[in-house]
């Protein structure tokens, strides 16, 4: 209820009014709507990761993680704009893929020391430091994606290239020749395009709209270098 402003005395009154004296007379009435909500945001569904998972069998634990990784593989192979990779990021998948790729790409015999092919550690470092550099770049450009989410996406999108590596290794068992090379080139190009499309589908939304190309170009360069390493792999 709004009282009449009794504080509006004559200008001629000599009593000095204290500061903000009139505020106490103002009260909020019903016809001034208050905007907004003052509700506590609901906590998202958090699974009970406490002692209940300590008691489960090892198989349960491993299968749960493997299923999560497998689900993300499916998301990469059929990329739609979805949040699964971003929301529940994990680095198991990237680790598995990177180790597989590095194992297959390393030079196979010790005495070919002078051979210029990459060692296991070189491939590993290229993949992880490349992913870190791209993540830093996209964060510096103003993208609102967290560090590990971006690493997760970039790591998972190596899956097509790992498949290409497997295919190339199989093709290389056959007779070498131009057909051999053409098949490998085609497979690598297709998988490279698939990787780019998959990572763009996941990463593009988190970038500021007028800098998308700037953030995607390093991803292109990264997968291009990996594709080059796969294409030029020659077994001993």
């Amino acid at each position, binding site marked *: 209820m709004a009282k009449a402003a009794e504080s509006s005395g004559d200008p001629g009154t000599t009593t000095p009014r204290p500061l903000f004296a009139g505020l106490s007379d103002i009260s909020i009435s019903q016809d001034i709507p208050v905007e907004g909500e003052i509700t506590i945001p609901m906590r998202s569904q958090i699974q009970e990761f406490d002692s209940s998972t300590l008691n489960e069998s090892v198989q349960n634990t491993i299968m749960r993680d493997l299923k999560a990784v497998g689900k993300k593989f499916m998301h990469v192979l059929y990329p739609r704009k979805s949040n699964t990779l971003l929301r529940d990021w994990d680095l198991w998948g990237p680790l598995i893929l990177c180790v597989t790729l590095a194992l297959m790409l390393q030079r196979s015999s010790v005495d070919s020391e*002078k051979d*210029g092919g*990459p060692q296991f550690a070189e491939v590993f470092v290229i993949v992880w430091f490349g992913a870190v550099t791209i993540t830093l*770049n996209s964060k*510096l450009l103003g993208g609102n994606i967290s560090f590990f989410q971006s690493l997760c996406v970039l790591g998972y999108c190596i899956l097509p290239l790992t498949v290409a590596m497997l295919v190339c290794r199989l093709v290389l068992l056959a007779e070498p020749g131009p057909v051999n090379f053409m098949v490998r080139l085609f497979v690598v190009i297709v998988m490279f395009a698939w990787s780019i499309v998959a990572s763009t589908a996941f990463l593009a939304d988190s970038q500021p709209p*007028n800098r998308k190309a700037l953030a995607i170009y390093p991803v292109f360069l990264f997968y291009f270098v990996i594709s080059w390493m796969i294409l030029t792999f020659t077994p001993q």
Partner: protein
Amino acid sequence: MAAVDDLQFEEFGDAATSPAANPGATTIHIEGPSESPTHQPGLPRGSGGEEDDELLGNDDSDKTELLAGQKKSSPFWTFEYYQTFFDVDTYQVFDRIKGSLLPIPGKNFVRLYIRSNPDLYGPFWICATLVFAIAISGNLSNFLIHLGEKTYHYVPEFRKVSIAATIIYAYAWLVPLALWGFLMWRNSKVMNIVSYSFLEIVCVYGYSLFIYIPTAVLWVIPQKAVRWILVMIALGISGSVLAMTFWPAVREDNRRIALATIVTIVLLHTLLSVGCLFSFLFFGVWFFRPWHLLQESRMTKPAGKLMGWHHPLASKRGHTEV
């Protein structure tokens, strides 16, 4: 706004009343990143002409200094400080690349394109792309040269990538550092109109390296003459961008020192381009000499096998002979 208009009018008045022999008023370019005007409306008072273009550039930077106030004051240990160096949009990066490819006499790259918003995105990723372009096309050209040889074993040379990367990044960062230090030292002796901040110099050098990326790709063509012509063209374009950028910064100086500075810049750039060509060839140079030895020992080339990826005859590769 009235105060700003007054300031603008006053500055123009100063420039008009200064003697015609002195083309530029002594405006001090405040160093360090400041807020960038994204699109400058054409100031109606500015008439055409290169002097006015520079004055406009100075006016813009001063005006934005006054208008923007303190913008980039994050301490250097926060992430936001480094984000200010990546404050560019896609079209800005493309404009800067275009500016580095088309050196127009009189148009200063820094004034026109960078406009006190230097970025580190361009230099870093152009250098990275250049390293990989040289590595991959070097490998490719080596492969194409030895196409059809039975005993040639193709190897991707990854060790050399790190050497090439070191050279290119060192050039893109250490030479601007030296140049900036030198310009600072000269500025303390001679009052120059234009002085560049360290990041702007890094930016110019980084973007001027862009021309080498298509050049490296075209170096796959195995003709020696073609390669040297490409080097000349690339050197001409990027060298002229650099020379035109730094000429206004040194022309107030002693004539000989100014010329010596420009000559040194161009010379270093020549060294870099020749170095790029040699590192390109380096990606296969270990095979050139033993290839000649193999050539003598073999009578005929094998027919019908286009890509001879057979098991290498390791003893013939002869790395130790180099």
